[in-house]
């Protein structure tokens, strides 16, 4: 009896996976992939796995090993997942291959929008875009008669009203965890102020009025956040939202789907998406646009590259998107933009710029991540903090050879 049940279940599950997407070919070349570990990558890598012989490594800290792994002879992975930022070291060291031939052969279904082109050559295939944008509790704003904030002054006014009304524990959530997250918040705010990070010769240029104004705005926002904001990352803010503890946050589009996940969220249907706020009405949203996509290693055989690209195309095909529509803002044909994608779309439509990824920006991002906390905790004033960040940047950039 039990054995029979087991057999039926086993057969049923075989059919289930077969019916879900399947793979149009059977892959016989052993392949390995290294990508980030968030929901969209889980969807893509499990779709790739259906072709067989694919071993996927999902690691949120992939960036620390990807450049070295791809520079090895032969490369340790065939397929890599990258974003604007993490694409830079691979491009710099030339460890990924141009994909034009493979796109011509197997990528007929790709839209031109998906092709990351550097000097005319396709170096990566994007699958999704991501941006931080405003998420808000519609019920709370409606109760208090507050319009959806479009600028940061309006965010502060809304936060004050929410605080007075005592509607939630903390009016604002913020991904202000020291390090990468905190630096990203500054990058958003500084670009929202129209700032430039570098002057000629890769000299740093953040110690100015716009930099100070960005820091001051961040500090004013923290007054309405959980006092433990310096340890709160995206997951933490997402959970605060899901548990009804915060009312507004500038959070990643990839986290939007989780708000309506009835298994985790107590606020299903109450969280709505809007453009990232700007500094001045009608100005550029204080956010950056990101893409995530796939690269193929250079140091592998052409046969492997061929198989790797085919498998990757199976990972980012229509069936995968149809099964995982809510996991991300996909660029892939078949994506149905729902209410959850509205925030990212509005942020882009209002003129947010792509994250300015480059070698020097990587150093600047690290210096910002380590240096801003001293201002927020009150150990330094804004001008000193920015001057120290510039000094830290210069030390690292000189050591690297980026600044003479």
């Amino acid at each position: 009896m039990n054995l029979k049940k087991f057999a039926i279940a086993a057969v049923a599950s075989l059919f289930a996976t077969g019916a879900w997407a399947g793979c149009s070919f059977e892959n016989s070349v052993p392949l390995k992939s290294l990508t980030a570990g968030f929901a969209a990558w889980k969807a893509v890598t499990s779709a790739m796995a259906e072709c067989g012989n694919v071993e996927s490594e999902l690691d949120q800290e992939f960036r620390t090993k990807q450049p070295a792994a791809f520079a090895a002879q032969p490369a340790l992975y065939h397929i890599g997942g990258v974003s604007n930022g993490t694409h830079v070291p691979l491009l710099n060291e030339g460890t990924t291959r141009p994909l034009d031939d493979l796109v011509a052969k197997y990528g007929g279904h790709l839209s031109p929008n998906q092709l990351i082109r550097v000097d005319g050559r396709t170096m990566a295939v994007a699958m999704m875009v991501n941006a931080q944008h405003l998420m808000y509790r519609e019920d709370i704003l409606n109760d208090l008669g507050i319009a959806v904030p479009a600028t940061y002054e309006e965010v502060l006014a809304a936060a004050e009203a929410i605080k007075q009304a005592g509607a939630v524990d903390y009016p604002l959530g913020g991904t202000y965890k020291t390090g990468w997250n905190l630096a990203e918040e500054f990058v958003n705010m500084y670009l929202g102020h129209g700032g430039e990070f570098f002057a000629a010769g890769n000299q740093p240029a953040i110690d100015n009025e716009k930099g100070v104004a960005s820091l001051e705005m961040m500090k004013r926002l923290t007054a309405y956040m959980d006092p433990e904001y310096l340890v709160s990352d995206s997951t933490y803010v997402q959970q605060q939202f899901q548990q009804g503890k915060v009312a507004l946050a500038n959070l990643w589009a990839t986290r939007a789907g989780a708000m309506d996940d009835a298994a985790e969220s107590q606020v299903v249907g109450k969280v709505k998406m809007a453009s990232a706020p700007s500094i001045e009405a009608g100005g550029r949203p204080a956010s950056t646009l990101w893409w995530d996509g796939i690269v193929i290693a250079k140091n592998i055989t052409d046969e492997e590259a061929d198989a790797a690209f085919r498998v990757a195309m199976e990972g980012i095909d229509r069936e995968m998107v149809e099964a995982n529509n809510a996991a991300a803002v996909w660029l892939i044909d078949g994506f149905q933009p729902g209410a959850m994608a509205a925030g990212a779309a509005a942020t882009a439509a209002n003129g947010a710029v792509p994250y300015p990824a480059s070698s020097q920006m990587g150093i600047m991002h690290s210096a910002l991540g380590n240096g801003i906390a001293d201002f927020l905790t009150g150990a330094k004033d804004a001008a000193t903090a920015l001057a120290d960040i510039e000094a830290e940047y210069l030390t690292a950039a000189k050591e690297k050879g980026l600044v003479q």
Partner: protein
Amino acid sequence: MKFRTFAAFVGPSLFLMFVFIAAPLVSVFWQSFHVTKARFETVEVETCTPGFLKPTCVTEMVTRPVLDEHGQPRLETRFTGFGSYRNVLEPDRTLAALRDLDWRALLTIDFWKALRFTLTFTLITLPLVIGGGLVIAVVVNNVARSLRGPVIFVSLLPFIITPVIGALSIRWLFIGDGIMTAFLEWWLERDIAMFAQGGTIELLMLFYRVWHVAPFAFVVFYAGLQTVNQDTLESAIIDGASRWERLRYVVIPHLMPLIVFVALIHLMDAYRVFEEVVGFSSQAHVISLQWLTYDLLTPDDSGNRAISRASASAMLTMVGIVILLVPLLLRTWRDQRPGGPGGAGGGR
């Protein structure tokens, strides 16, 4: 022992120590005096990235490394003397802060900030670990024989837990509205945020380390307690010594070599404090020397890492440990000399 037998026993260990300790140390030492740079060129590049409907193409000046004929970046390594050490220690800012007697300014320099925490962490946990271990050992030694097994097992548990996991569990008890924070809030009837300021995070880190390491001290001391001379203890009782006097004048002197041993090990471990910084994400408020080295070594999004500065920072950490250990090592050396007070090395 014959020299051949001695060599056969010590040889493999010496070989491994050379491969895994001496050789890397030499390489780190070398790297701390050299800097490897790539040659960069600035070129105009057109990059197209996805927009929402159509791609956005921008032409901009990009700084990128020059590749050689094998497609590898051209690297050149140069001797920089104490350059990396200067970059870590920042002598100009340090001297300026010292001249103004500005303690706060000094502590905004990463190295001194890290050293301040590392030293206070090491020196505060040291007596707590030794004291705590001794108390548990004495208590367990006085517990009824039938209960000893279970009590020893329970006392050892914290030591068995993987350090990072231990730190994370305590973090989860206290972060946000964690169980312990919720309890404290209920008990003290006030709002508490343990992770909002450096002081409380530091307190949690100290608590965690003592909780984690005290069992080690306990095991060592408990073993030592089994060898206390019972005759001396009995004569002390006949002389009318109280429980405290017996501990102070008989037990502790007997355990002294073990106390020095535990102190040595603990100083070495605590000076390399690292798991706590990661586990409690305390970077915003407190960092340690080991974490500083780690942070310099971690590549950023663009793959940059500061290997030379990390090496300099690692060498400075090692110098710090050696300075801390000198007094204890001197003491041990005096004790170990023929005719020294410790004689043949009491129990080690």
